[in-house]
């Protein structure tokens, strides 16, 4: 294993990193991850207090989270908002990406920048704008406006990922499908979409995580009964500093961790090449021509 990685570095023309570099890297890694790790023992603490290290170990805080109806309701609300806004964001982001990458029209670059602008505008600005807007329409506090707000927030992320993937899809594939008699929709469904699937899944998972963790927009747009989990957590920090938060934090970290693992699997071209090569070795009876 060690000698494989060494060879790979050498083929790129560099030297393998020295011991000191490795130590610095590990130190930085630990420094960054420590806050998340500290939460884990704390979450197994007891009683209604946040304390490190915990004085006794129990699942009390987890029980508190899973059996307290307020936490469960806000969790379901978060899932609902995240799933709906992810679906909407995937649809809007993918179609917008397709238009921006494939079509030719005046002002294409401007439109692209405009569609991506929610990435650059501070969340608090978006949140305040949406709050005033929805309040005027009498929608503020509804799940519907939460979903709309989150859709606005996640769409550019999906768009960026899909645009990058689409630039890697040879337009000749679509041209070929059309000359072979396939219509636009057939071509999109059978050629373009399957090639974009990994990007769509990745973008969608990102969108889901972004929405699930989002606080600022949710804080402004949610109302009584439509609070999402992060909003409820924030409230409980401000009002009561509930130790249940540490248990929830661990669960949220786990969720993010699993999503990242899935993304890595979907977005690892190296691994797929290996699988393909393995498959080839198995089916290869004739030597290749060259």
């Amino acid at each position, binding site marked *: 294993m060690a000698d494989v990685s060494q060879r790979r570095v050498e083929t790129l023309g560099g030297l393998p990193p020295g011991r000191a570099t490795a130590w610095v890297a590990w130190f930085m890694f630990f420094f960054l991850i420590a806050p998340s790790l500290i939460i884990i023992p704390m979450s197994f603490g007891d009683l209604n207090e946040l304390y490190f290290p915990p004085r006794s170990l129990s699942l009390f805080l987890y029980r508190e989270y899973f059996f307290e109806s307020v936490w469960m309701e806000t969790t379901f609300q978060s899932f609902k908002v995240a799933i709906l806004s992810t679906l909407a964001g995937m649809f809007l982001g993918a179609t917008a990406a397709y238009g921006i990458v494939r079509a030719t029209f005046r002002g294409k670059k401007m439109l692209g920048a405009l569609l991506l602008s929610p990435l650059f505008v501070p969340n608090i600005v978006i949140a305040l704008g949406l709050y005033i807007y929805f309040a005027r329409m009498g929608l503020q506090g509804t799940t519907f406006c939460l979903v709309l707000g989150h859709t606005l927030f996640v769409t550019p992320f999906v768009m960026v990922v899909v645009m990058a993937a689409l630039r890697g899809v040879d337009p000749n594939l679509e041209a070929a499908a059309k*000359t072979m008699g*396939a219509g636009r929709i057939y071509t999109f469904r059978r050629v373009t979409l399957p*090639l974009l699937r990994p990007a769509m899944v990745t973008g969608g998972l990102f969108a889901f995580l972004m929405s699930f963790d989002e606080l600022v927009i949710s804080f402004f747009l949610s109302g009584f009964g439509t609070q999402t989990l992060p909003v409820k957590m924030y409230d409980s920090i401000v009002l009561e500093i509930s130790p249940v938060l540490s248990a929830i934090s661990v669960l949220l970290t786990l969720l993010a961790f699993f999503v990242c693992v899935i993304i890595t699997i979907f977005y690892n071209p190296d691994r797929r090449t290996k699988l*393909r090569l393995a498959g080839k070795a198995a089916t*290869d*009876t*004739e030597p290749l021509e*060259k």
Partner: protein
Amino acid sequence: MTRPNDSDSATPMVWLQDVTKHYGTVVALAEIDLEVRRSEFLTLLGPSGSGKTTILNLISGMVGPTAGRIWIDGQDITEMPPNKRGLGMVFQNYALMPHMTVFENIAFPLRVRKLESRVIRTKVAKVLELVRLPEVARRKPSELSGGQQQRIAIARCLVYNPAIILMDEPLGALDKKLREEMQLELKRLHASLDITALYVTHDQEEALTMSDRIVLLNNGRIEQMGTPDELYFHPRSPFSAEFLGDSNILGGTVEDSGPPVIVSTAVGQCRCTRDSGFAENGTPVKVMVRPENVFMLPPGNPDEHPNKFPARMVDTITFGGVIKSYLRLADGSSMVVQELTRAGQAIPEAGSEVYVAWSADDTILLPVEGRIETPSPPSR
């Protein structure tokens, strides 16, 4: 769509009727009138930017013409979307669907046509036999070599029996040996399947090898159209002469419109027995001779030749079967002589004085600019 056998064989398979294409202010094609005959192998040849790919895209429907009409088999298809035209196309980068197996790739046009899966299986198997790759059906395109991928791309085209196959530099990405193999393969398929093929290339050798007819394009215009023989032996412009094959060109003025035509050049008189049609006394012209038609004579050779000039040897390069000698004439213009290699052949040393000579039949007169508009004499 099957090939209509009953239709009038005089109707051209494709007809570009005075087609013009502008991209913004750039004129990609300027009033092209081009006919592709039924069952012929027609090559569009030209340097990059000459409009050859634009012609292909116009026929396939990927772009629309700025002016003019496009006809396929007697039907005006100018406004018809690409997927209704019933064409086949082979791309330089193969354009095989990377997410599908070879079988699915070839089955794609059949699935579009909603054929039964039993029929699809038979047809795919048959066409894989035809391109001699029956064992790769279950592989992904990425597991095949470039040559195999291109053969699959061709199979995908043949499987639905389109009336016309468009090929956009299909062999451009292959190495030389494989390319030559595939040229013969394509010729074989074309001859045995009775397809109309429209082939785009910038490789003049490929065009000369494969085509029934060549259309030489230059700056969005047809420079010359004809059989490979006509283009090679009867170029009608300096551009044609230089683009197809190697050429030696001398500038001069017509002294006597003959026959034989006598042209005075900076190195002396050239004689040309070919009927050039345009050379009147006093016309400035270019004199062209192919390197393989020039021969070298040792210094002091007393023979009389219609075209014989002293020259100094500059360099010699052996290309396997042929030797090319680079010489300089008295006025400084250069001349290339190509001979077949023979073992123990005596090659004049660099710097030595020799004669170059060629027959009056091999001398071709060309206008200084533009092209001869009168049709060239028929090829032998």
